[in-house]
């Protein structure tokens, strides 16, 4: 029985900040940062945007492409590390806003940057089991980096939403896998404002080990080699990592270009590889095979193999494309405005 994506949608906020404007404030070498990370600018959420608002817009776009009534959605999962509430799900607001309540299962997920793909993993399994007809999974974040920290150059905002079902698929899910160990490369303790990371430990033992672990397990499952895929997308905390891990796995830059958004978007955390997938779906052709591997610190990777169907052509134009949102009508802000929007300024009592 086929399970896959019935509708997809993405949302990228309009505001941007250039890395150079951040580096100037902290006396850092902007050129070195941009070169080292392959990051140039990142998205910034407005004061009235958060994981819930972006998820709602992305979900509405997914519904537009799915062409189903929202009441038929049986589950809503939002993965994020910046849920607006620590206790009270983002999913209930989104479910209410799209009209899926009350016959709907809902849970908020957290697993650093792979909370979005986690939702996708669970949603597809729930549909496959026959428990629900359609399930909505969203990866969204308005993540924060401590002022002056390396993370401040990459933490960005965005949302990607997928509706899973069994009929009218625009992409079938051929296989999914998950590869996970307890690896404290990046974390945030309860009540702390900003996350911490373990420097270079976030590289080989964390990102690369788990991404490769999931990718290899996935390709073994579907008995495929890198050349068999039209597109590959990996978690993209910066521009460098996904290109490096992809090439080490045997993928070409060409295969990865379409899903590679981070140089101009930043790291949208739980939205990262899912957004890359939406950018691919925006231009994919029937028959294209896509490999997607996420990564979340802590640590783990979810992997998926998709095959695009004929139906993709009917739905691409039904909602805004990801690349268009990334490249067009941007609103640049300076660091002062950025700090104000991100709540980094100590306000009066």
């Amino acid at each position, binding site marked *: 029985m086929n399970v896959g994506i019935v509708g997809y949608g993405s949302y990228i906020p309009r505001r941007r900040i250039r890395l150079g404007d951040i580096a100037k404030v902290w006396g850092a070498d902007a050129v070195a940062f941009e070169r080292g990370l392959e990051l140039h600018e990142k998205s910034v959420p*407005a*004061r*009235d945007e*958060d994981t819930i*608002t972006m998820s709602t817009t992305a979900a509405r776009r997914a519904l537009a492409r799915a062409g189903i009534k929202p009441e038929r959605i049986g589950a809503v999962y939002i993965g994020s590390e910046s849920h*607006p509430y620590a206790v009270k799900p983002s999913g209930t*607001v989104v479910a*209410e*806003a799209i009209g899926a309540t009350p016959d709907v299962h809902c849970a908020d997920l957290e697993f650093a940057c792979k909370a979005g793909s986690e939702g996708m993993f669970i949603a597809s399994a729930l549909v496959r089991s026959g428990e629900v007809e359609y399930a909505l999974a969203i990866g969204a974040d308005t993540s924060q980096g401590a002022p002056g920290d390396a993370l401040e150059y990459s933490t960005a905002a965005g949302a990607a939403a997928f509706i899973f079902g069994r009929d009218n698929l625009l992409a079938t899910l051929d296989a999914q896998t998950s590869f996970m160990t307890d690896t404290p490369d990046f974390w945030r303790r309860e009540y702390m404002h900003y996350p911490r990371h373990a420097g270079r430990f976030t590289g080989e033992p964390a990102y690369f080990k788990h991404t490769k672990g999931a990718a290899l397990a996935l390709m073994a499952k579907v008995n495929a080699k890198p050349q068999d895929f039209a597109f590959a997308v990996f978690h993209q905390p910066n521009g460098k990592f996904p290109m490096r891990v992809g090439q080490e796995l045997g993928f070409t830059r060409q295969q990865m270009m379409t899903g590679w958004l981070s140089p101009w978007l930043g790291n949208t955390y739980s939205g990262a590889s899912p957004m890359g997938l939406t950018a691919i779906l925006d231009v994919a052709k029937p028959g294209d095979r896509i490999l997607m591997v996420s990564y979340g610190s802590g640590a783990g990777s979810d992997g998926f193999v998709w095959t695009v169907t004929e139906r993709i052509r009917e739905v691409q134009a039904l909602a805004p494309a990801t690349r268009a949102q990334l490249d067009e009508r941007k609103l640049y802000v300076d660091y002062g405005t950025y700090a104000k929007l991100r709540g980094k300024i100590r*306000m009066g009592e």
Partner: protein
Amino acid sequence: MTTLNPARLTREYPARYRLEGGRCLACGAIVYPRRLVCPECGGREFALHRLSNRGTVKTFTVIHVAGSAFKHQVPYILAVVALEGGGTLTCELTDLVDQQPEIGMPVELQFRRIQEDGEAGVIAYGHKAVPV
């Protein structure tokens, strides 16, 4: 006592979250939000009418001095928007890029945070207008 009381907020979800209003079955007038009596004909029966999320700006202003809830968001644009197919509302107009607000500007309603009850209280969501 405040519009941010949780019960008070929850009861307005149909209008604020889903743009639900009513269409008077007697005269066809669109009301938003729903109400018990038609302001045009006095009718008492309505069908559910979801406002379109597309509309035009009827008038606007740029607010530079605001009350405490919006104090740190100034300047912001406030507009009266008439939606396609009926219904009008008041909302912020935001995310203009290299444009000035204009009467007649086509806009789309997008889900946004409207207010919050301080750092620890509930967050109130609704819609704002963005340029198409």
